């Protein structure tokens, strides 16, 4: 692993995309940044603009209206970008998988690097997933 990769995995900046979510995953993602879990000790920051992002967190079921927006956000992000699907809805579609407005799980729209299942996943599970993602290669 070279110097570039080392710097990249020590400083992952996260941009959060919420699809048609029930808000439970959003709350658990925010929990990761609170004093109890503190993702900043791994160098992870939540950024406001997708131009600064290294990781795109996607949660919630992606319906037909979200699909275009997700593609737009993904195309606007500077590469290399890692995509993480969070929660049952992001990974497989969950209970919305057979709904009429459902546009497929995240990995049918954009390439996904890590899946964190759960409804919602615990903050510990999200941290474990992100640390495994950072230690990959």
């Amino acid at each position, binding site marked *: 692993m070279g110097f570039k990769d080392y*710097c990249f995995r*020590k400083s992952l900046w996260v941009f959060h995309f919420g699809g048609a979510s029930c808000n439970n995953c959003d709350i658990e993602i925010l929990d990761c940044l609170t004093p109890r879990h*503190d993702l900043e000790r791994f160098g992870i920051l939540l950024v406001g603009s997708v*131009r600064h992002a*290294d990781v795109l967190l996607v949660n919630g079921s992606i319906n037909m209206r979200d699909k275009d927006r997700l593609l737009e956000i993904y195309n606007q992000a*500077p*590469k*290399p970008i890692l995509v993480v699907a969070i929660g049952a809805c992001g990974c497989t579609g969950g209970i919305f998988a057979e709904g009429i407005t459902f546009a497929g799980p995240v990995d049918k729209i954009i390439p996904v690097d890590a899946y964190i299942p759960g409804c919602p996943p615990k903050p510990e599970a999200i941290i474990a997933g992100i640390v495994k993602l950072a230690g990959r290669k």
Partner: protein
Amino acid sequence: MALNLLYFFVFPGLLFVATAGALLSWFDRKITARVQFRKGPPLLQPFYDFFKLLLVKETILPKHGSPFIFLLAPVFAVFGATMAGVFILLPLFNISTGFKGDLIVIFYLLTIPSFSYITGSLASGNPLAAVGSSREMKLILSYELTFLLLIAAIIMKAGQKFDLNSVITIQQEGTPFIRSISGVLLFIVGIFCVQAKLALVPFDMPEAETEISEGIFIEYSGSAYAMIKLAKYIMFFVLPAFLVALLMGGFRLEGINILWAVLKIIGTVLLLTLIRNTNPRIKIKQAVSFFMIWMNLLAVIAIVLIVFGY
């Protein structure tokens, strides 16, 4: 010539101020984390952030904008910050430049980063960046007069000396300016000006990330954003050092006094961080009236006190 290049690029210049500023920015993040009962990032975190942006990430150019100015603005910001750093740090490290009147030059050089952020964000063609840059302009209009009054008061207190070298010498032969009533008032004014110049939290409306999502920096990515980060690190060291030079008697570089010099800088940064962590973001209107009325009033009172010898 070779010596000047050494001054600009290595010792008081780019390499030194960038390293010191990055370490101070780690200190700021660590203290912020400790205030919120978190653990905080590792020591080399600012370097990881910088090299990741510089080497790994792709730089995206805006479609409806001027790519040339967009890419040139961060370079100008780094240049302005480094030049200001060289002019401030040469007298601080007792290297005589023989330049009478460098306080005025420093004042202008310190505004270059803010102006380049404004130019760069307006060149990106993003509406949120336009909102951010209009706020940055109003912020500059509000704090710049106060900063000029601060420098004028220092010049009067030093006995009409316009160069930083004699300001520091006068303080080291007599007492530091902060040990008088007018000095304390000027220090309060100076801390708030530095807070606004660094765009830290009570005055971070130009880059309010929850409101206009990073505002002036919204379109920057990759190595252009790395340059902006570098300019921010440099300013984080240069502005507290300027305050130390103006009011706290600068550095003495023998024996135990080196530790004392480091403590002065760290104490100033600690104060800035604590102000940042205990205040919410204010509106731009409130910032203008805060500087235009209250801080200017404080600076004028300090000047009157200096005339009467306090």
